[in-house]
Structures are given as structure tokens and as C-alpha cells.
């Protein structure tokens, strides 16, 4: 099993806490990076774009955040992705079951899936196991 870099972009500290506890218990997770808004996450990726090992394999991205929300982040990431040395799976994660948000997420081909909070540990394990 390949070691996986996980990235969490969410301003909810409780969520950050619960995700951290869940990921700690998954052996394939090599590292977990947490950002409270899209801008910080984007800044990290851009600055590490040559360091393939430091880049995340999967991003759990929240929609509602200050400074740069999930969709704004994706708009920027699409430009950056081709320059990166590896593919990044992006999961949009939100407590919203608003169909508008789901539709908007599905339209964006760079987004792998839309997940509704709370995320069960089994779901997270399943997602991570798909990464080769």
C-alpha cells in the first residue's frame, strides 16, 4: 500500500479535529496537512509544485470558507494541476445537502466526488484505498 499525503481544507476546527483522529488510525496515510481556507492551501501547493512527495494525493475540500471558498480554490487549482508531477483527487466536502451545491460540484470535472458531512471512517478508508 502506497503512503498517501492527505490535505484537509476547512475552517471548522471540530471537523479538523475529527478528521485528524480518523486519519491517524489509517496506516496508509503518510501525512495530513490542514488549511483553514483555500488561499492557504493553494499557496502551499504552488510553492511545492516541484516537490512531488510533498504534494497531496487527495484533498478534502470544504465549500464555505473565508478568504477563498472551495469553488474559488478549484478555479485556481485547475490552472496549476497540469504543471504538477502527479494527479490529485479532490473531494468536495460539505454539510450542505443543497442540490445547487451538489450540481455545481458535479459540473467541475476536476472534482472527483461530492461528499456530505459527517464523513464515516469507512468511507474515508474506501476512498484512500482507491489511490494507487
Amino acid at each position, binding site marked *: 500500500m502506497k503512503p498517501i499525503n492527505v490535505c484537509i481544507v476547512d475552517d471548522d476546527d471540530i471537523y479538523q479535529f475529527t478528521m485528524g483522529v480518523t486519519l491517524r488510525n489509517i496506516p496508509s496515510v503518510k501525512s495530513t496537512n490542514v488549511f483553514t481556507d483555500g488561499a492557504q492551501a493553494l499557496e502551499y501547493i504552488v510553492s511545492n509544485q516541484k516537490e512531488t512527495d510533498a504534494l497531496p494525493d487527495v484533498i478534502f475540500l470544504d465549500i464555505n470558507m473565508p478568504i477563498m471558498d472551495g469553488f474559488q480554490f478549484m478555479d485556481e487549482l485547475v490552472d496549476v494541476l497540469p504543471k504538477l508531477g502527479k494527479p490529485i483527487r479532490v473531494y468536495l466536502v460539505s454539510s450542505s445537502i443543497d442540490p445547487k451545491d451538489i450540481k455545481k460540484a458535479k459540473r467541475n470535472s476536476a472534482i472527483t466526488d461530492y461528499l456530505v*458531512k459527517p464523513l464515516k471512517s469507512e468511507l474515508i478508508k474506501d476512498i484512500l484505498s482507491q489511490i494507487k
Partner: protein
Amino acid sequence: MKHWNIEDVSTRDLFEKTLKIAKVGIYELNVISKEIYWSSVTREITEVPNSFIPTLENIQQFFIEGNCRNQVKLALKGAQANGESFDLDVEMVTAKGNQRFVRHIGYPYFENGTCVKVFGILQDITERKKIRFDLVKKNRYLGFAEKMAHLGHWKINPKKQEFTWSENMHSITDFEIGTPMTLEKYLSHIPEADRKTILDHIDKCNRTKIFEPFTHRIIHKDGSLHHFKVLGEIITDKNGEIEQIIGTSQDITEQTIKEQELVLKNQQLNLAEKMAKIGNWKWNTVTGEIQWSDNLHEIYGHPKDEDLSYEVYLNYVHEQDRHLVERKIGEAVENGVYEDLNYRIRLKDGSIKTIKSTGIVKMNKGQTIEMLGTCQDVTEQFNKAQELIEKNQQLTFAEELARIGYWEWDIVNDHLTWSDNMYRIFGMEVGIPLGFENVVAAIHPDDRDMFRAHAEEFIAEKRFRKFMHRIVYDDGTVRTVELYGEVISDRAGNVLKMVGITQDITEQRMSEIKFRGLLESAPDAMVIVDTKGKIQLANKQAEKMFGYKATELVDQYVSMLVPNRLWDTMEYHANVFFKDPKHTGLPADLDFYVHNKAGFQIPIQVTLSPLETSEGLLVSLAIRDITEQKQTAHRILETNKSLKESANRLKTQNRQLAEFNHITSHNLRSPVSNLSSLINIYKTEEDNDLKEELIDKMESVTNHLTWTLDTLVESLVIKNKTNVALEETIFESILQKTKDMLAAEILKTKAIIEHDFSETESTMYNNIYLESIFLNLISNSLKYRDEKRRPRIFVKSKISNGRTQLEFRDNGLGIDLKKNGHKLFGFSKVFHRNKDAKGVGLFLTKAQVDAMGGKIWAESEPGVGTSFFINLNH
């Protein structure tokens, strides 16, 4: 020169007898005793009774006054004084008033150098003159000169072989005057063929002692042959022997030729007259004697041998023209001027001719004595002219129209000429003669006055207008006819006649009535106009709609029914229609109106249809009153408006619902999902420290959830609160209160808060809301200040578009509105990494502004500052 001894009674008797044949009268004036002798022929010529005693004075009257009388006086004087004989042609008036032409010859007789007698002859040459006059007259056309016939007197004494010839006898026989005459000499001038005739005649005279008139020829020196007529009387002595033969020879060559010529010319003239259908007439108004030329007899169909008088003539004149003719002739007699006259005559066989009569009047002493002139039969010309008019009219009118009759009304003579079909239209027997009143009698009683009035009007105005009237047949059938025509005047402008056609339009009339019925039954107001826009017909519905009677509408322009402001619109649509006339409805949204008699405007919808008629294109306008539809439409519009408003309200509520949905799906679900995650971890976690931490986290989440719910409830209260209390709120005091509440922050940040409420100091608002708005916005400005500079906040009130507007301007961090504008006032939206940011302030502020019916928006530039604008109310 040898003079006859007129003392010799026997000679005189014989002479008189002889001269009687030639209508020669003798007279003798005894210059000494002033006695005058007139022979019986002289008396006949002058038409005096036997008892008349001529004197120098009373004979004057017989010579026409003037030249003629003076000439006679002078001649008599000359004869007495100088012994001059005279030979005059004089015009005489007989005692009975007859005019005669007379040859007046006179010789003076001298005794002892004194003139004692003047004697001579009077010859009535009226006939000859007349011939000459006729010739002169005819020569005007034919160019013949008149020549006179001559007479010669002779006396033969056979015993003495003595020939006594008058001077004139010499000249007519072409012998030198004074040449002694012998039988041999005379015979030498006679053509051989005729010599025997003369010798035989002399022989016969010797045997029978009776001189029978005979003719012979004589050759003149120039070789010309002359015809002589010889009359004579044989005078015998006691023994029965011939003592003397006296006689008259007349050169009748010219007469013969002239007579022959005259006969010829007369024939020619007659022919010419016949061809021109002209006849001559002469009427002695004194004696009443009337002479007609042959042709005139023929024209009138009056036999030559039948009596002729004014009454007979007048009887031929058409009864309807008789009065006119009598009047005109009366005027001619009175004024001496014969005016050309046209009239009709009715011949014995019943045929009618039209006569054109011209003439001149002869007057003497201011009295009309004679009239003469010509009559021309112009029936054919008249008929031809009439035929021409008829043909023309028929060609012009009849081609298009069926059931027509042609008529011509000679107004002067009140004579009507009708075509056969005209009689049939009137249900009358073809050909019966008609006058105006006959026509009137055939007309429907109700139309008669109108018919007369029209006729009078047309004559007065010299203009015909078409009109209609009805005819009633004997069986009671009523027909309707229409008349077209023309008034014909002479050059002087006198109306002579009317010509025209009459059309039986009963069937058309029926179709018109049917059409009218159809029109009346139409549900819409129908108005039919011509291409000029003149109304031709209007139905009952139109009367009802417009408040005018149909009679008030007809012949008026349809524009009288349209308000002035719509004339251009009407004209435009009329032009469009006439470019391609077809059934057209005017656009439904045209918003067209008509106004009725009372001036009330009615919204209408119009449909135009072309109507092809014999009188050209007509347009039928179907007009529908759409007042009700308009009202309905208005109601629908109103309903629509209120529906729109409801929809807007629903939309707002929907948006609020969506907003609320959004809030529940995010802001309520996320703490719940956090709680769920924490509990799941808690269940599986064995580490007690971590479990402790989880409990703390759960408490924090629960608190957040409570706060969220409280805030939502608050916002719902604000949004649903109706009848929020309004009071006068003074901006400056609100700002002061806000400053007091934020005193610590202001002091800490050293913020400068300025204001300008000069434009409007206060408004009617909810005090608490406005305090909350001030507090939220100013605290935001302080919270999101730019650390690089000292915070400056400026609050201003103003009136914009009638609304009270507030502006809060700061020099803080600013927000990228392009990215975040849509969620600026959303619940729990934060735009800065600030620990105190909860994303509630603007959410609640908007809820408050909305609740008061206002509007809030922002302008911002990151790094420069933000301005919030609030329209406090609508």
C-alpha cells in the same frame, strides 16, 4: 314723224280694242282746259270706277310717292315746255291698293308753236316686270340678265299700199327709223319659209276680212332670227272692202327665249328647291293673297288648285306650335322684322315635318304690305341630328346599362320623343305623342311634385342631376326608374331641350333593399363609404352607436365620426387599404376611437371590406364597440399587475425560504454532523485524555449550535415582524449612542468617526433597528480595519430620489466584491481570517433593512476601504 289722229273715233276705238290685248291704256291731257281723258284700259289699270274723273291733282296719288311721282311730273313739264316725248317705267298703286308696274309713254301735241295736248299710253307691264323681277331674283343665283320685250304698232292701207309704222316697229324689225316700208321690203327680211305664211295670211285676210293672230320670224341685220307675234284688226269700208289693217307686232324672241329659259331655270330652281326642300312664299298682308312655290305646295302636301289663305296655312301648323307661329307672325307684321322660326306641321296624311322659316317684311308708310320668304323642310336634318344625339347617347349610356329608355324633351314646344323602350318602361303603348304632363300623369302620385321641381330646377340651373322616381302601371305595379340626362341650350343660353336616358332600376332597388336588410341585421355598426370617404349608407346599429340619423350621416365625410387626433391614423390605414383593397381588420392594438353626436368617445375595432359596385369601389366598415372588452382587458391588466406583485412577494418569500434552507443545510447541519463525528470517535476511543477533549469539543459544538439557532430565530423575528413601531429617529443621537457603546474599541483603535447629517437630520424609522444597523456597520469597520493606517469612518445622510439614504464609508481592508459580493449579506459568511468574525452582523443588518422596506448594498476595493449604502425606505 307722223302722229295718229286720235280725234278719229273709230281709229281710237279700234286702237283701244287692239291695245286692250296688250293691256295698253290711252290718256290725253288737254293742256288748255286741264281736262284729262282716260281710256277704259287706263281705268282698268288704275282700277278706278267709271265715275272717276281724272284731274291733274288726283292722278298724282297713283304714282308712288318719291322718285316715281317726281319723274312723271318732270316728264309732263318737259313735254309741254320743250315738246319732249317721254317713255317711263313707273310704279303705281291702284285705287284698290294693288301695286302695278306701268310703262308710261307721252307725246306733246303742238298747235301754232304752243303745246295744247299731251297724250300717250299706259301699259300694264306688271306681269313682265314680275317675270323680270323673278329673273333678276333668279339671276342672283343663275346669272342671267334681263332683257325686255318690245312692241311695235303698224297700219296698212292696202289700196294705197301704204305702210305706217311706229318708231318702235322700226326698231324691233331692225329697219332704220323713218324708212318707208313696203311689203316687198319687209318680206326681204323674212326667212323664206315664213314668207309664204305672211302671204297666205294676207290672202286669208283679203278673203275672210278677219285678222287672226299669227307668228312669223324676221332676220335682223346681224343675222339673228326674231320671233314676232302679230295681232291685227281689219277695218272695212261701206262696200266691205278692206280699207285699213291696224295691228301690233311684238318681238317675242326674247320673251320666248326668256320664257323658255324661265321655264328651264324655274325647273332648275324647283329642282334645287326640291333638293334643298325649300319653298318660296309671298303673302300680301293687305289683300291676304298668298302665293306658294310649287315646292312649297309639295312640302305642305297642299294641292296647287286648292285655296290658300293664312287660315289654311295655320291649319297645317302643329297644334302645339300654332300659338308660337301666330305670335311670331304677329310680331313680324307689327315690327317689320321676320325672325327665323322653327315649327312643326302636320300634313293631311298625319305625318309631321319640321319647318325652318325665314322671311322679310315689306312696308309702305310704316304699314306692312307684304311678306315673303322661304320655308325649308328640315325634318330630315332635324331627324338626323336627333338620330345622332340618340345614337351618341345610346352608345354612351346604353352600353353599360340594361333596361334603359332614351328620351328627348323639346322644352320650347313641350314635345317628348321617346325611344320604344322608354314607352315599355312606362308601360305605355309605343309611339303615342307625349308632352310633359302626360309623363307626370304616369308617375307615382307621391313623386309628381318632386319630378316637377326637378324639371324646373334643371331648366333654371341648366344642369341635370340624376334622380329617381317611381312609375305606377295601370295594373298597379310600381317600378323605380333613375334618370340621367343633359340640358341643351342655344348659343344665347336659352334652354331648348333635355335629352337623357331613363333606367328601370326596380331590380337593383330590390337588391339594394335586400342589401339594406342584410346591413340592418348585421350585429355591428356598418358604415359604407366611397373612395373619397363620403358616407353612402349607415345601418341602424351605426345610428345607435353614433347618435346620428342615417340621413344625417349620408354624404358626410366619415372623418366627422373620428376625433381629430386620430385623423392621421385613419388616413394612414385608409391608404394602406386602398393600395390593396381586401378584407382587412385594423390591428387589434390600434386603440382607435370614434366620437358620437354627444362627443363621447367610444373605443372601437374596425374591419374594412371592399365592395365593387357599378358606381365604383365602396368600402364597408364594420365597427364594433369594444368598450366592454377594453374594460375587461383593463381588469385583466390590473389582475396581472397584482399577480405580478404577488409573484414578487412569493419570489421574495421563496428567496427567504431558500436562504433559510441554505442556513439550515449549512449552519445547522455542520454542528450536528460535527457532533455525530465526535460521538462516533468517542464510542471507539479508549484513550481517556482524548475522551475528555472530545467532551469539551461536544460542549463547544453544542454552544455554537445554540447560538446559531438563537440568531436564526432573531432574524426570523425581524423578517416576520409586521407593524414595526416607527418614530422620529435623529441620526446624530443614534451615532452618539453607537460611539458610546464602542467607546473601548474606538479608543483602542484610535479611530476617527465623522459625520454629515446636514442634508437630512432625521427619518421616521424603528429606533432599535437603526441603532443595530449603526452598531453593526461601525463595529465591522473597526473589526476589519487596515492595521497599516488609522481607521477613519464617515457617516452621511442624504436624500436620493426622494428617499433617505445613509452612507458608511471606511478606509479598512475592503472586500473583493467580484468574488464575494453574492454572499456579502449571507448568514455566517466571513471574509477575513478574524477570530471574532461570525458572519452574522451583515446578515442581521440586511434583515432589518429589508423588514423596513429598504435596500442595502456595498462598494468596496480591497486595500482601500468599503462603503455601505442604505436606502432606508421606499
